[in-house]
């Protein structure tokens, strides 16, 4: 039995393939999101989904790089939400900013709700 490598893989032939796939988002998720944006009777060729899969990773890297630069300029170590919003504006994705702020607000409220529920459960059980 071969020793597992740091990734936990024991099949040498499969190693590069798994690392390669980690660079991309799952194609099923990509396809699901794309489907919402194309006409109802439209289909997507496998090649087009794979191409968009690569584009998604490029987009993430693009935004991250810009946000990271700003973070460094301000001598901070943690990329925060403001850095991302700033990067979106800087790179020409202004229309995303307002929707993103709304989503973030909903998300924060949802997390707060979870924390309150957890605290309530603790009080009930712990005493």
């Amino acid at each position: 039995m071969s020793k597992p490598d740091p990734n936990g893989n024991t099949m040498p032939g499969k190693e590069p393939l798994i690392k390669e796939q980690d660079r991309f988002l799952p194609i099923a998720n990509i396809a699901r999101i794309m489907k919402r944006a194309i006409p109802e009777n439209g289909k997507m060729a496998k090649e087009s989904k794979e191409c968009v899969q690569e584009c998604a990773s490029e987009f993430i890297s693009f935004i991250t790089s810009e946000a990271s630069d700003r973070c460094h300029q301000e001598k901070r170590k943690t990329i925060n939400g403001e850095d991302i919003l700033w990067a979106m504006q800087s790179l020409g994705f202004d229309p995303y900013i307002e929707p993103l702020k709304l989503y973030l607000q909903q998300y924060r409220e949802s997390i707060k709700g979870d924390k309150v529920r957890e605290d309530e459960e603790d009080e009930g059980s712990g005493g």
Partner: protein
Amino acid sequence: MEEVAEVDVEDVENEKSQSTETLEVVEALASNEKPKFVRLPLTRIKHIMKMDPDCSLISQDALFLVTKSTELFLEYLAKESAKFMGMGKRKTVQKRDVDAAIDNVPSLCFLDGALE
């Protein structure tokens, strides 16, 4: 006397398709389920961000915003690609439609040459 509000079916359907996500959030909250705010795996997104050597720590807000903006980006790219599919009077989005969108839409120019 009970008043029944008249609802235009078309309006409801249009609203539903435009705000499907909002509807899902509302339904989930009503049933005390955690709404699915993101449709992409946060861990994988974080992994891709960390591939940048200059990227060290990422706040929860930042990770959420990158995830959400990627969703918006994917929808946008798909929509623009589908326009080229439509021009070719086809029903299947091909890779060449995505390439055409990258060549013609200014905000997608960063992808030019970035793909293998």
